[in-house]
């Protein structure tokens, strides 16, 4: 799952309505009291989300919880954290039953995880990583970005870190020496903000997030340009730990995701995410990412 921006931080230009507040308050209260109230009942289903959403995170959370709750049954707890790493750790350790993670952590922990579903964007469960620079930058290709201060999204992000690192490795370059300096912004939206403001000269960003933001925040995206698009790679999937493979709710979740476009509430979620739907994919769908991990590992 990609990190589109921290819902608790990315307040810019996002008006919070009363409905959002009520939704948040209700969900927050439910989160606090759920273990006490449910007690001996079936434990609530915890679905992890990396700081993900596009424009109106609280609205999306509300619809998603409502949809999943209706389809899976029982109580659904949506778990969000600041970094990919935190969500991946919770998932791998079995503290949450399922999570939308990135392809990179998935291939790293492939042995411990099952694929539940992969989002379909523009008809395919694929996306790209972009190297971006400010709109007035003359660089024609990635090599022109040498010596930049560079913004990465997250050390566990495929599109926001691994792809660029692998590209440099393939060309016998190290990120530490190719770029003058680099740092992580922990959000694809933040990468775009850093490049647009001039804080960094270039950045590595999720192509899906970039394209959607071109629609939702055109003024911000307009200040940047794409220097390089990567090959098409497996879209960040929803995975669950093998330890809960027999949990009915995981299968229910898979069904709920794959049939999301058949439901009105589900379509609202898809519309907010600008996705076509979800599809079941095989682990080999992420082999290209695994190859990049290997390239990076070999380059040291």
């Amino acid at each position, binding site marked *: 799952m990609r990190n589109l921006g921290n819902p608790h*931080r990315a*307040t*810019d230009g996002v008006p919070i309505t009363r409905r959002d507040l009520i939704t948040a308050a209700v969900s927050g209260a439910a989160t606090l009291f759920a273990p006490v109230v449910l007690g001996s009942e079936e434990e609530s289903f915890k679905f992890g989300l990396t700081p993900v959403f596009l424009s109106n995170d609280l609205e999306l959370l509300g619809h998603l919880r409502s949809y999943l709750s209706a389809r899976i049954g029982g109580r659904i707890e949506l778990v969000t954290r600041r970094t990919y790493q935190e969500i991946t750790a919770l998932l791998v350790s079995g503290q949450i039953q399922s999570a939308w993670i990135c392809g990179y952590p998935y291939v790293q922990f492939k042995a411990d995880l099952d694929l539940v579903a992969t989002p379909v964007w523009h008809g395919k469960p694929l996306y790209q990583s972009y190297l971006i620079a400010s709109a007035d930058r003359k660089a024609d290709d990635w090599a022109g970005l040498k010596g930049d*201060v560079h*913004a990465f999204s997250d050390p566990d992000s495929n599109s926001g870190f691994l792809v660029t690192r692998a590209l440099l490795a393939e060309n016998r370059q190290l990120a530490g020496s190719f770029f*003058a*300096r680099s*740092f*992580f*912004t*922990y959000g694809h939206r*933040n990468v775009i*903000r*850093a490049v647009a*403001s*001039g*804080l*960094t000269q270039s950045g590595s960003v999720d192509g899906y997030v970039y394209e959607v933001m071109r629609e939702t925040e055109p003024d911000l995206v307009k200040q940047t340009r794409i220097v390089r698009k990567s090959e098409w790679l497996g879209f960040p999937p929803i995975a669950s730990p093998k330890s809960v493979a027999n949990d009915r709710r995981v299968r229910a979740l898979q069904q709920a995701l794959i049939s999301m476009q058949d439901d009105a509430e589900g379509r609202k979620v898809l519309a907010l995410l600008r996705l076509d739907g979800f599809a079941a994919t095989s682990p080999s769908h992420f082999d290209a990412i695994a190859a990049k991990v290997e390239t990076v590992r070999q380059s040291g």
Partner: protein
Amino acid sequence: MKLLRRFRSIPVSYRVPVLVALLMVVISAAISERVLSRLSRTQESFLNGLAETYLDGLSSAVVPAVLRADVWEVFDALDRSSASYKSLAPIETVVTGSDGRVLAASDPNRIATYSELSADYRNRYGPDVVTIDEARLTGFAHRDLVYQGQPIGTIHATFDVSHLFAERREILVTLLITNGVLAALFALGGFVLVRQMIGPMRVLEDHMRAAAHGAAEPISHREIPAGDSEVAGLFRGYNALVHAERERANFAMQLAEEEKLSSLGRLASGMAHEINNPLGGLFNALDTLKTHGETPGVRDTSISLIERGLAGIRDVVEAALATYRPERSQRPMTAADLDDVRLLLKPELRRKRQRLDWSVAWNGARELPIRGGPVRQAVLNLLLNASAVTPEDGTVSLTAMSWEDRLHIEIGDQGTGMPADIAGILIDQDPGPAVRAGRGLGLWMVRRVVDDLGGRASIAAKRGGGTAVTLTIPFDREDTKAHAA
């Protein structure tokens, strides 16, 4: 001093408004200075408070990120804070790490991350929270970031303070306009008020000026303001003065007339006596002629007697005519004028059995360039006075001599001396008081003649008793020239 004198010469109806306006300017300058200085202090303390709040808020937001040297988190905090502190109008905020290098600036395009801050930038802060650069209309503030007693970085903030100066300018302009309008209004009010106040004084001044040139007219009732008791009192006082003066003048004129008639009576009786004396002789001569006319010796003697008697009568009549016919008074003075006076005085002297010491030292000219009539009048009056105060069998004297361009006439008596108030009529600058008391009208006429001729009178005590009055009368100027030529 010259300026002050010139200012004092400006009429009061302009001077007061100008003073009021100047006073208003001074007051408004003082008030404006106080207001602006107070405003400036208030603005600065307000700005300091805002800056402190801004730096406090930003410090707590960026300290963890600065500790980790997390560029993005620092930038994110700066980016979000700029929207939260709009009233402070931050232009630029820069956070540096412990090594002094920039971690993030609110505008990374201007100040790049990881760059070094210029010395100017680091040394631009004064002792206050906010240092204001008036030329660039900006304020600067900085805050050292301290964690567990260790300095970990600094926040440098630049604010737009142009709105403070705009506000000051706006208030200054408002003050100037308000005070200017007030000063103008007060000056106008002062002008109108003073004009109104001195209006009655103008009326009084006009009347007094007219009075100085002759006719003292009372102020008409229409011009006396009904409500203003002070001015009305003043006007009524002036009118009372005019009426009293008129009454006194009438009284004096009446007295003068009476005095004139009285001297005329004395003269007439003297003249009658003078004519009567020869008349007895004339009738005797006529009787003698009737009785012994045939005798040639007697007839010739009688006719001669009648002739001399008639000649004496003719002289007296001619002297009286010369003295009291105005058309003759404009003639230049001759020795005959004094001889006429002597002739007119004679009966009075005889009545009192007084002697006249007569000494006229003429300079040889037949005529003197002085109007003869008034001099005769004055000398006759003085001699009549001298005769009146001199006891019987006493001596009255007249000494006249011309000297250079003036005529000196001294009249002496053997009286007991002239009282000071009566003497004042002749010699004081203002002969008024004695005249107004209705005394010494003969002397007053002398005084008027002397003044009219541009001369002066003096009084001195004579050795051996008595008083000498001296008239010094200058020759008429044009005649003097002619005489000199």
